């Protein structure tokens, strides 16, 4: 038995050579992505993951891991396997071009037209 300053070591009578079987795949379960909402009315934001065996435990671990400081109104958990993500490689699909100004507020210059109209009318 270990001679230790740690009372837990003595209580459990831990042996120094306590070999154990290695952890198997999925011993730590699968992962859930956690989304955190600070206040009612805010967006939920992705904050990280937890390992959990089911959604209820994922919520519990999510609360401990991401909600134990500051303020929290609500959290969501989603199995990582259920999230479908775009590829960074395809990031160019989000690029816009000058011809798409018709989608932007800045693409409409009404004041120019109005001023031109007023000037011509006076003349």
């Amino acid at each position, binding site marked *: 038995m270990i001679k230790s300053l740690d009372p837990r070591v003595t209580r459990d009578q831990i042996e120094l050579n306590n070999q154990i079987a290695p*952890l198997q795949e999925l011993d730590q379960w699968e992962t859930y992505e956690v989304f955190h909402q600070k206040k009612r009315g805010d967006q939920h934001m992705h904050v990280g993951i937890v390992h959990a065996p089911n959604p209820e435990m994922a919520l519990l671990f999510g609360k401990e891991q991401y909600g134990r400081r500051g303020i929290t109104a609500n959290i969501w958990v989603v*199995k990582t396997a259920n999230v479908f993500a775009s590829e960074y490689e395809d990031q160019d699909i989000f690029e816009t071009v000058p011809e798409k100004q018709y989608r932007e507020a800045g693409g409409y210059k009404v004041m120019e037209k109005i001023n031109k109209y007023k000037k011509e009318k006076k003349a």
Partner: protein
Amino acid sequence: MYGNAYIDPNEKPKSIIDGEDPIKLAEFEARIARGEKIEPKDWMPREYRKQLIRMIEQHAHSEIIGALPEGTWITRAPGFKRKLALMAKVQDEVGHAQLLYSAAETLGKSREAMINDLITGKSKYSNVFNYPAFTWADACIIAWLIDAGAIINQVANAKGSYGPYCRALDRICTEESFHLKYGHDNVVTLATGTATQRKMVQEALNRWWPPIMHFFGPSDKISNHTEILMRWKVKMATNDDMRQQFLNMYVPKIWDLGLTVPDTLLKKNDETNKWEYTEPDWDEFKRVINGDGPCNAERLAVRRNAEERGRWVREALNTSQSKYIVPLA
């Protein structure tokens, strides 16, 4: 809590970019040079992935093992308020381990594989946790000065290039500020207390000074390897730079309390603006990191015991049919 990533000095110096696609490598380096982050599914050099896994994994192990010497003092912390605070700190450290294991997982190593490598002694963790916390004052010195060292390291690494690691570190750094204040408050209480309390905290500081000087690791060999890791923003500062930063910030605060540092050569050279000190005993550092410290065997035995005792609970809950998927971010 953590020291700098431990790179084995005996590792063969080889070209770490051998065989990499030069076009992809150039794009990768340009992205980092622009200050953009690398995300899990991006192309990355093998050595980048390997060093990051090793570094983040060591960091995670350091958090989980670091919780052990401090956890020892929860039941004996003086007063209810300090017990609560220490419990919160220890919980944070275990939470840090979870955040860091998650970041390492995105690079392709499962949490099970990392824990297996920890409990068999294959992976390293910060050397300081192989020393015992003899008294309550030791726990206070750890919370103040070891966490202070960890913060210097973590703030630097949070500006690194790998997205998931940076995001984990941002969360961690926020919590560390509580640890630092809590630790400082406890040390101040002892240092401004009775003669017995002052003696107790001075003795703890004397015990912890050598491990603190070891904390950031030996001077880096200026090698091609180090240079590339710094260009890739895997390594953010040299070990000596971080040690200087620590001394600059904390030695004056120690002296402020009328405590002494057990190193007669320690002083700031006003010309070079650098701290001078007795070179730490790097043979001891190597001996301890390779397994032969006062607490290495105990720490791993305690960790194995925890894994084994929790195993039936994890198995009983493991009813899911789904497959493991690498987390997204």
